[in-house]
C-alpha cells in the first residue's frame, strides 16, 4: 500500500509524472487490453476503448483519492468505457446490445486477430446469452484469471454473490454448448 501511495505521488508530481505514467502503461496495458477485448470482442474496438481508458485515467489521476486500489480503479474505468462503447454502438446501429454482440461473434470467424476454433466460437455465443453481470464475472474469472477478491473490488459485489454468479454462468454455458454440439 505504501509503495502504491508513493507511485501515485510520482504520477501526480509534474517532474516525475511522465516516467511514472510510462510505468503504469507498461504494467497495465496488456491486462486492460485483454479485459476490454473480452467485452467488446473486436481488436479495433478494443484499441479505441483502451486509448480512451488511459486518457481518462491520466485526466482523473488528480481526483484519485486512494480509497480503492489503483488496479481496481483502472479496471472499473475500463469496464465502464467498454460497456458505454457497446451501448453507443448498438444505439447508432439501431439494434440491441445482444444483437450487436452476436454480430461481433459472427465477425470473429473472419477476424485476423482471432485464432479460436469452433468450440471457442460456441463458447462466445453461450456467454453472449448470459446477463451482463454474469458475462463480466465469467470472463474475468475464466479468461483473465482474476481472483474473486479482485473482481469484488472492481465490480463492487460481494465475493459470495460473485461465486454464485460464476457457478450459474458455468452451468448455463455448459448446457448451451452441449445442446449445440448435439444438434
Amino acid at each position: 500500500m505504501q509503495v502504491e501511495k508513493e507511485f501515485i505521488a510520482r504520477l501526480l508530481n509534474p517532474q516525475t509524472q511522465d516516467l511514472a505514467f510510462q510505468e503504469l502503461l507498461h504494467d497495465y496495458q496488456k491486462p486492460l487490453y485483454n479485459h476490454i477485448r473480452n467485452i467488446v470482442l473486436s481488436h479495433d474496438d478494443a484499441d479505441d476503448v483502451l486509448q480512451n481508458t488511459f486518457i481518462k485515467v491520466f485526466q482523473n489521476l488528480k481526483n484519485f483519492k486512494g480509497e480503492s486500489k489503483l488496479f481496481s480503479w483502472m479496471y472499473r474505468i475500463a469496464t465502464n468505457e467498454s460497456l458505454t462503447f457497446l451501448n453507443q454502438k448498438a444505439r447508432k446501429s439501431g439494434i440491441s446490445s445482444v444483437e450487436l454482440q452476436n454480430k461481433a461473434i459472427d465477425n470473429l470467424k473472419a477476424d485476423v486477430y482471432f485464432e479460436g476454433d469452433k468450440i471457442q466460437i460456441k463458447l462466445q455465443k453461450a456467454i453472449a446469452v448470459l446477463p451482463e453481470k454474469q458475462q463480466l464475472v465469467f470472463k474475468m474469472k475464466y479468461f483473465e484469471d482474476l481472483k474473486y477478491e479482485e473482481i469484488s473490488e472492481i465490480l463492487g459485489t460481494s465475493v459470495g454473490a460473485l461465486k454464485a454468479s460464476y457457478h450459474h454462468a458455468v452451468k448455463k454455458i455448459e448446457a448451451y454448448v452441449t445442446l449445440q454440439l448435439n444438434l
Partner: protein
Amino acid sequence: MKTFKLENGPKKDSGFKTPDNYFENFSANLLQKLSEEPVAKETKVVSIFRKRKTVLMAIAAVFVLAVMIPIAYQINTKTKEVDTVTLENYLAEETNLNQDELISEIEPKNSTIISKTKELESETLEDILVTNPNIENLVIEN
C-alpha cells in the same frame, strides 16, 4: 451424446490475438497524444456568474408565470359570464320595455314553469295567514 464440461481437458483461452508490436506502438502513440493535447481534453469550465445568471433567470420565469396564470384565469372567466347585477341594471336602465311588456314576452310554456315553481305549499300559506292577520284584511279590501 457429447457433454461439454469447462473443467474437462485444457482450459480454453479466449482466442484473441493482437498485431505484432501492438503494445509498443500503443504506448508511443498514447504518450504522444497526451503530450500534444492535454488541455483540450480537460473538462469545460463554466463561469460561476454565468451559472448564477441562468438560475436567476429561471427563478424570474417561474415568478412571472405564478403571477400571470391567476390573472389570465380571472380575465378569462370574467369575459365569459355576465354577472346578474349587471344584467338587472342593464334591463332596468337601458331597455324600452316595461314590466308588462316583459311578462307578455314570456311564452306560456315558460310561465307555467314559473307558476309551478312559485307555487306555495298550502300549509305554508296557512301559517302565513295565521301569523299575519293584516293580510286577511288586505285581501278582503281588494
